[in-house]
């Protein structure tokens, strides 16, 4: 007998694009994706309405004490909450399910016996999950900024060094802060993809990144060595704080970007290798 090499199906031009397009179409048909997107758009407004109905403010949260004074503090408070668990949860809703759902529906055999290679299917699905992650993050950012500006106002805000930041500058810093979390969001997306492929189980794929994120939060709360904290995927979610000092510091942003990219590359590479080698059996 001779060992058989992995049979690579010849690529069809534009194959990944077709898969990507269909994954997006499928997402628009799924209630969970609609719900999450709707939540990202509405939740900040509900949050501001709830804050306006009470005199207390979330003082323990960065910029929380100014939620009644300037609308630009709202997206930063939301970002502080979201970075702890909401963004990992929101991104993993799709990333953790996008491969495992094929096992749940039993459709791997249906799509893998068509004219697209596993590489193209993986690429299309991974891109769709990344698109969803970016879109939900951007939606949450814009929605919370809009909610703050519309329901509280566009008053100048006070930076972390006590300097007054003009509304235009505040808006730029807010949007930049949200932009900095896109990389760790994609890191969690990669983690969701890996768990989705490896576990073949949507519960593990969706819940796993959230649990891992919470564990990382716990590790960062205990007296872990700085190197450990630096290597946690949750740490980059707070790297934007340095943008709001009189002398901005970018070291955490660079470190966070590197950590996020490494997480993403390792997780997505691992998921790809697992899918390529997988025997698709069972109904």
């Amino acid at each position: 007998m001779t060992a058989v090499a992995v049979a690579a199906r010849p690529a069809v031009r534009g194959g990944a694009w077709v898969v990507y397009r269909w994954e997006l179409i499928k997402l628009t048909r799924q209630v969970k994706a609609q719900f999450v997107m709707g939540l990202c758009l509405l939740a900040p407004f509900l949050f501001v309405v709830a804050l306006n109905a009470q005199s207390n403010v979330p003082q323990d949260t960065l910029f929380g004490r100014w939620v009644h004074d300037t609308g630009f503090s709202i997206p930063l408070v939301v970002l502080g909450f979201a970075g702890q668990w909401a963004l990992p949860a929101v991104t993993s809703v799709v990333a953790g399910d996008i491969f495992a759902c094929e096992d749940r529906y039993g459709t791997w055999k249906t799509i893998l016996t068509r004219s697209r290679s596993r590489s193209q299917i993986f690429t299309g699905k991974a891109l769709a999950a990344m698109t969803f992650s970016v879109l939900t993050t951007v939606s949450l950012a814009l929605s919370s900024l809009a909610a703050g500006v519309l329901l509280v106002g566009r008053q100048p805000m006070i930076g972390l060094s006590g300097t007054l930041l003009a509304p235009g500058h505040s808006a730029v810093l807010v949007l930049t802060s949200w932009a900095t979390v896109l990389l760790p969001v994609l890191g969690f997306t990669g983690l969701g993809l890996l768990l989705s492929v490896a576990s073949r189980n949507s519960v593990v794929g969706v819940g796993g990144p959230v649990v891992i994120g919470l564990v990382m939060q716990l590790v960062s709360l205990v007296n872990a060595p700085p190197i450990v904290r630096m290597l946690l995927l949750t740490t980059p979610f707070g790297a934007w704080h340095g943008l709001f000092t009189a002398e901005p510091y970018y070291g955490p942003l660079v470190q966070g970007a590197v950590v996020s990219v490494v997480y993403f590359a390792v997780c997505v590479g691992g998921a790809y290798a697992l899918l390529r080698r997988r025997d698709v059996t069972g109904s």
Partner: protein
Amino acid sequence: MDNARPAIEARDLAKRFEETVAVAGVDLRVGPGRVHGLVGPNGAGKTTLLTMLLGLVRPDAGSIQIFGRDERRLDGVGGFVESPRFYPYLSGRRNLALLADLDGGDAATRIEESLRVAGLLDQAGAKAGGYSVGMRQRLGIAAALLRDPKLLILDEPASGLDPAGMRDMRALLARLAAEGTTVLLSSHDMDEVEDLCDDVTIMRTGRVVFDGSMEQLREKAPDPAYRLSTSDDDKAVTLAGPGLEVRADGDGLLVHAQQDRLDTYVIALGRAGVAVRRLELESSALTALFFRLTEEDA
């Protein structure tokens, strides 16, 4: 496509799942334009063999050529293994549109025709999640036809269909075969295989125990078996003449005989005052051979 080449040529295929040997050194050759049956009991390795042919499972050893190609290209190949499955939140037609896009080319232009041929045109707008097993089977056939296949690989395509659906499915396969499509068909049902197939491969515990034409299989077939109940089974056993094997088997008698010998035997029973209360075919000659090949000790 070169018609002289076999549609499928698999040599020495082997696959093991942990401690279980699913396929052990199987050779399979399916000629172009032939309808080839793949039969065997549960666990014989049929589905594993089909999944390897479709590139879903990597063989541990051996080689596969589809239309003479070494690489696992599925151009011109359609089919499914086990029950075909679809996205439940999309309609049948939308599922086919997705698959047609994955296929590329002009597959999308064949959606309506495939639905019509599979007998699913009226239900194509409904979500696939509400489909019965039989409707999913029909949608699976429609999905296979989208590819305008030169080779159809089907795993128990009549499974889950009602009698009318089974009749339609057989008619469809017969028509496709008549048009020159090569069909590899796995089945539990020897009658189905006998009706449809030119050649047959019988598997047992991962190995091929018969491979040849239906004529060659019929030549090897033993006498068919009949279930017989009489007013006096003990006496009926003593009346068995040459060319008959009659033995008590729980619920009456089991008779192995050719049709003409059986006729003579029944007449003899009547003349001897033994009334025949029930006589029915227990297993056809091919079914009897199937059992012999797949149940005898290795």
